[in-house]
């Protein structure tokens, strides 16, 4: 398995810049997820690594070898497509053998590799079937099998679960994680589904509008979003945002909560003026006294193990608060809310996290 290094890579389609000066390293054996909304450039990055899109500027190294000018078949990476792209007129074993025949492997070697991959993916009984005779989940396995037999330096996945139904998606996600643990392979995985990103990734690259917003472990991305976009994009339901003012109290810096209460933010020294407070629904507690904000419950979503309350703040926007599954609150109930200070994010007018930059200083 090998590193993948993209250095100062740029890509334009006509006059439109799609990727601008991207530098990114995927470590050997790492499961890296490119996460972002449609049009964020994540698939373009994957296709540039695969060789299906040219790299206009910059360099690409796979396993220490420069690859940006090599054709796709010679980069020693395997790709699993969103719609699997199984050749309809070839059997499962034919699909898996095609790539190996092209590199001139002997029949015995091809048969051995197919048998090994089929055993690993538990699809030995499917080898003589044709793609049309397979279910969505089985096709997905064959597509992965076709990648495995090539023994590539890295696997590239382009939204491989998006064509599966919800139950199968969850199961295949777990299987993919297990497969990665067994193969210890380098994986670049593109998705717009944050659950996939959070559950599968060693590291997540959050992309928006053709640039990298943040690179970090799933927990870093979730708990310490670098930008307002990341905060809003990752997590379901999304993070709540409330406009607040900063205020010095002696030498200590803090913010004025919607209730008018001053909240100290230790370590935050470079913030001033109006900022946006970001807080996740599970970091807000319902209390009897000493509230940071007050409001009225407008909508109740009971999800079984937890309840989501949509609360209209008395002085602020509508926010979502997580309560226990057996919440006794009703619509129009008044509530008092307290923020978990350690989970607060602050975003300046430029959308970047102020608190994070302050804390890191």
């Amino acid at each position, binding site marked *: 398995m090998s590193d993948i290094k993209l250095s100062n890579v740029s890509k334009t389609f006509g006059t439109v810049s799609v990727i601008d000066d991207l530098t990114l390293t995927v470590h050997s054996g790492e499961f890296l997820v490119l996460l972002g909304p449609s049009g964020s450039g994540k698939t373009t990055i994957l296709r540039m690594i695969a060789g299906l899109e040219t790299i206009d500027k910059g360099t690409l190294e796979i396993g220490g070898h420069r690859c940006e000018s090599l054709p796709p078949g010679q980069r020693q990476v395997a790709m699993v497509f969103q719609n699997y792209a199984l050749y309809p007129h070839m059997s499962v074993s034919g699909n898996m053998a*095609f790539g190996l025949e092209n590199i001139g492997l002997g029949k015995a070697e091809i048969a051995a590799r197919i048998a090994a991959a089929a055993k690993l993916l538990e699809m030995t009984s499917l080898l003589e079937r044709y793609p049309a005779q397979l279910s969505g989940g089985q096709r997905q396995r064959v597509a992965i099998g076709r990648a495995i037999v090539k023994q590539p330096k890295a696997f590239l996945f382009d939204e491989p679960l998006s064509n599966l139904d919800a139950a199968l998606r969850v199961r295949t996600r777990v299987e993919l994680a297990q497969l990665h643990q067994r193969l210890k392979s380098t994986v670049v995985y593109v998705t717009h589904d944050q659950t996939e990103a959070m559950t599968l990734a060693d590291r997540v690259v959050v992309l928006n509008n053709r640039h990298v917003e943040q690179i970090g472990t799933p927990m870093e991305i979730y708990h310490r979003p670098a930008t307002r976009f990341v905060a809003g994009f990752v997590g379901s339901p999304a993070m709540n945002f409330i406009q607040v003012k900063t205020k010095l109290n002696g030498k200590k810096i803090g913010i004025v909560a919607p209730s008018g209460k001053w909240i100290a933010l230790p370590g935050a020294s470079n913030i001033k003026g109006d900022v946006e407070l970001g807080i996740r629904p599970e970091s807000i507690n319902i209390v009897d006294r000493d509230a940071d904000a007050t409001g009225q419950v407008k909508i109740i979503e009971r999800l079984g193990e937890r309840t989501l309350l949509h609360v209209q703040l008395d002085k602020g926007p509508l926010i979502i608060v997580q309560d226990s599954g057996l919440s006794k609150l009703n619509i129009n109930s008044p509530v008092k809310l307290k923020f978990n200070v350690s989970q607060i994010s602050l975003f300046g007018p430029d959308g970047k996290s102020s608190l994070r930059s302050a804390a890191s200083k």
Partner: protein
Amino acid sequence: MKGSRFHISRVGAWLITSLTVLIALAWVFPLCWGVISSLKPEDEVVRPYIELWPQTLTFDHYYTALTNSLIGLWYINSLVTAVGVTSITIFSSMLCGYAISQLNFPGRRYLYMLILACFMVPTQTLIINHFILMANMHLLNTWLGMILPQLVYYPVVIIVYKQFFDGVPKEFREAALMDNASEWRIFYRVYMPMNWGITTALAIVVFIWTWNNFLWPFLAATQNETMTVPVGITQVYNAFGVYIARRLAAAVLAALPVVLLYLFFQRQVTQAITLSAGIKG
């Protein structure tokens, strides 16, 4: 209300069916009459009234047409010409359609427009050029001379293939590229096997069109031995004098292979006609 609407739609269906049957009869009657007449003795054929069934059934005219003309040789000429034109047209059109649809090369759009422009030129206008060219190359009265000019007759096949390849998801090509397949292997291992249905259909119609083609074979063959069946049967008049039944028997023999092709490959022929509908110039 419901009942009356049902009534109207039933009457409409009956009207349309009756009209279709009438038109079909008008279409099929001359053919049937021709076949029936070819089975009558000559004196029954020239009677001044219509007899729908022969009083005396005879296969003599077929025997005479087969034994006293070169129709066997004409069949071979037709077969070689039709198979040659069909196979070369299909194979080159498939490659051309694939290249225009899938490969990125400078001038691709212009090449496609040029092929589209070919529809504006009736093949008849090329006849003189073709004749002079073939004569200068000493290819008149040869199979090659019969085949070569007809290779440009069916640009529609290129367009049908191009549209087919356009419709194939690009991921197949990309998957094959990732599989380290060469352009040639992508074409013949991935794309070609996907279009056997359309290839069969197109091959059958090109075969039929070529078999039935008259003008170029009529000009390119100046000797009895080198004629194709449709050209040859016009010579039956000279060979037999005015024997209508014999000429009809020869005509039936000429049409027989095409009729059989239609019967066996009806579905494919319909598919090919549908595919090229609105394109064919």
